[in-house]
């Protein structure tokens, strides 16, 4: 058990050590231990190296010193003269001692008498000459000399080695000391004079070997420090290198938390550069992520059943544009291409800054550029743009939504939706005009009714003719008002699809005669001659009498309204095998053929100024045609501007009502009959 535990600890230790070398995350205690061991080791090695070098150098210095002292003794012995009593000899001796001291660092070099009181007869220190060395160092010396301590002038203790060499009896015979010096490792007892040298224990300056040992220790310490720094930086570099490798391969999505790699700016100025590099890498990472998302979207579009999603987007009637963070037109559906006149491939090459366009495209670019904020994001916008041929008054209206994407709040991505609301705007405008016209049309007969009613009730006008006239006007205007209300009601029923046909046999002669009678007053006001021309035999048609009366009233009313005074209006009827055709012909202002379709549309009136000058709501012809169509028939108009108009109402004949005269006649007829 203990063995397994030990093996496990070794494995852990080895794993931590390898992790430490490769700058991976290791336990803090392990890192500190390794650093401590390294520093202690480096210090020990350096200390050992220095001590070893000193020891070796001291031994060598000791040998050299001893040899130098022996050489000096030989030189002294070779001086010719009478000895210490000879001044010439002493001068030569003194010179030899100084030359020795000049080459060998010495505290003292001297010649001492070999008997008490051991007087110094020559020394490099002039003050020593004539003094005695004292009994404490006068004893026999061991080989290698005697290690002594001396007190310096500043009171500190210094250790030196005293070397002593016996000198042969002085004076020596001239020439006796020539040749190689004889080793004097052992002092000779009883010598007459001695040479003493007090030298340092070791060289005063470090040797080259000690220098090398110190340099090695310094290099190792620096290497250790560099390794620690490398470990710190390696942690930061690892994230960047990981991103770099993934950027190259792009094998998977990049989600490295780069913010953790930032270094405190308080360290020094160099960290600002590093943090800038991290920020740049962050932006690069975000860009790559979005690129991957775009590619993923494209991939989805391609994979989804051969572009089924793309087809779905292209089927949307609204223009759809996706702008990427590089302000590039990344995607346009078919409607956007059509509205802007761009091709999807060309648009993808454009950026918001270099794109050029005309018409709606130019206005859209201005809108998007205006919504781009300095910090690189878009603000939401909803605007209405107009584009088209201004001179031709062919303007289309577009509502544009610019929607910044929430997921890219910090980056400029947005979706632009363009909707052509021209039809809606026109419909709204027509509806507003209709309300204004209806208001006007209601107020006009009401004005007459109110004015003539007050005329009657005021008592100021008692002439019977005036009273009769008042009643007639009130009656006529009331009928006009009633017709208008009927028309509006019919439109309302047609709008909601609730109109019902109460089909019965309708005598056309009666229907048309009643219609002429209703507008007789209007015709008489303008002195318009209204004629009714019918075939001798006219069978009833199956229809809703009241609804058909609305049709007759509207067509007759229009004929009289748009025919100048003293004009003619002719109402006729022709019967064919399967259809009855009612005709309403006038010699009025006519209708431009370009507006033959428009005049049957709801709330629409002819653009002729003479038409605009007349009151009207734009629902009369629409109501008439819809009622006729619900009978299975249709209305046509033959007209030219200034040459009068002929409206032809085709109704299926009683005997052959199944024979449709319009595409949906049979269905509508059956529906109406059933109702």
């Amino acid at each position: 058990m203990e063995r397994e535990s030990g093996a496990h600890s070794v494995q852990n230790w080895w794993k931590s050590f390898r992790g430490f070398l490769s700058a991976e995350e290791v336990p803090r205690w392990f890192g500190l231990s390794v650093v401590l061991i390294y520093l202690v080791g480096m210090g020990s090695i350096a200390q050992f190296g220095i001590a070893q070098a000193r020891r070796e150098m001291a031994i060598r210095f000791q040998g050299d010193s001893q040899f130098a002292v022996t050489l000096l003794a030989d030189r002294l012995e070779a001086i010719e003269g009478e000895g210490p009593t000879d001044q010439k000899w002493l001068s030569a001796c003194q010179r030899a001692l100084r030359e020795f001291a000049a080459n060998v660092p010495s505290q003292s070099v001297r010649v001492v008498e070999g008997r008490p009181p051991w007087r110094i007869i020559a020394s490099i220190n002039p003050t020593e000459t004539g003094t005695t060395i004292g009994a404490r160092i006068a004893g026999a010396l061991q080989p290698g000399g005697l290690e002594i301590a001396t007190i310096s002038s500043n009171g500190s203790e210094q250790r030196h080695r005293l070397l002593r060499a016996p000198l042969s009896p002085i004076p020596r015979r001239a020439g006796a000391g020539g040749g190689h010096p004889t080793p004097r490792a052992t002092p000779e007892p009883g010598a007459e004079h001695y040479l003493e040298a007090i030298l340092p224990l070791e060289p005063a300056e470090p040797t080259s070997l000690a220098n090398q040992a110190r340099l090695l220790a310094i290099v190792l310490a620096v290497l250790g420090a560099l390794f620690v720094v490398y470990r710190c930086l390696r942690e930061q570099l690892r994230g960047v290198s990981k991103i770099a490798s993934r950027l190259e391969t792009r094998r998977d999505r990049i989600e490295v938390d780069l913010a953790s790699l930032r270094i405190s700016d308080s360290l020094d100025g160099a960290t600002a550069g590093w943090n800038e590099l991290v920020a740049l890498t962050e932006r690069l990472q975000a860009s790559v992520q979005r690129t991957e998302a775009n590619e993923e979207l494209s991939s989805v579009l391609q994979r989804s059943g051969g572009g089924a999603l793309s087809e779905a987007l292209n089927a949307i009637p609204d223009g759809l544009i996706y702008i990427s963070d590089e302000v590039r037109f990344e995607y346009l559906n078919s409607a956007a291409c059509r509205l802007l006149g761009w091709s999807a491939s060309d648009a993808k090459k454009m950026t918001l800054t270099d794109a050029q366009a005309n018409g709606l495209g130019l206005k859209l670019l201005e809108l998007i550029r205006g919504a781009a904020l300095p910090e690189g994001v878009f603000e939401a916008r909803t605007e209405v743009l107009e584009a088209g041929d201004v001179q031709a008054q062919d303007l289309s209206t577009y509502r544009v939504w610019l929607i910044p994407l929430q997921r890219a709040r910090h980056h400029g991505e947005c979706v632009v939706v363009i909707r052509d609301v021209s039809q809606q705007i026109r419909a709204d405008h027509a509806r507003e005009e209709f309300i204004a016209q209806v208001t006007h049309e209601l107020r006009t007969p009401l004005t007459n009714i109110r004015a003539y009613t007050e005329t009657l009730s005021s008592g100021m006008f008692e002439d019977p003719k005036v009273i009769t006239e008042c009643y007639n006007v009130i009656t006529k205007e009331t009928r006009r008002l009633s017709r208008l209300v009927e028309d509006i009601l019919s439109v309302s029923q047609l709008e909601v699809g609730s109109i019902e046909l109460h089909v019965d046999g309708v005598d056309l002669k009666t229907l048309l005669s009643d219609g002429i009678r209703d507008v007789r007053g209007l015709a008489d006001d303008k002195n318009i001659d209204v004629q009714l021309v019918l075939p001798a035999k006219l069978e009833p048609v199956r229809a809703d009498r009241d609804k058909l009366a609305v049709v007759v009233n509207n067509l007759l009313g229009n004929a009289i309204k748009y025919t100048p005074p003293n004009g003619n209006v002719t109402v006729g009827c022709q019967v064919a095998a399967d259809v009855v055709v009612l005709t309403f012909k006038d010699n009025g202002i006519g209708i431009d053929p370009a507006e033959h379709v428009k005049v049957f549309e709801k709330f629409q009136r002819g653009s002729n100024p003479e038409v605009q000058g007349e009151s009207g709501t734009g629902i009369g012809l629409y109501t008439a045609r819809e009622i006729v169509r619900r009978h299975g028939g249709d209305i046509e108009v033959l007209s030219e501007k200034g040459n009068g108009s002929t409206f032809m109402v085709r109704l299926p004949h009683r005997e052959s009502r199944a024979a449709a005269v319009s595409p949906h006649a049979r269905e509508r007829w059956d529906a109406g009959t059933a109702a």
Partner: protein
Amino acid sequence: MAKILIVDDDAHIVRVLSMWLGRHGHEVVTAGNGGAALATLEREKVDMIISDMNMPFLDGVGLAKAVRAKSGPTIPILMLTARCDQQRLGEQLAMYGVRVYPKPFLPSQLVVEINSAFGGLGVAAKEGSVP
């Protein structure tokens, strides 16, 4: 007593106004549209114009502009209209010195309005003077 030109393509309006104004001592001349009114003004000098707004050929605005261009601001103009944008129309026509009067109206109130424009002139009704 004043001479008043009534301009309207609705003959019934022209008729009822003629009766009421005549009864209150005013002389009335009539026209069916703006163009006819200008022709009348070529022939006759009037003290006031009462005109409908919507008329064929030349509407009330066109008539007012033409009158102001030719005669200046001397002739008061009262514009009758059944339109629903009467406030905007009133602001538009104020620069021509034209006063907008809404339809439907009561003839008695309109006569008071007209008489006040002339400082009470012709208020005395003349029984039996209906044209």
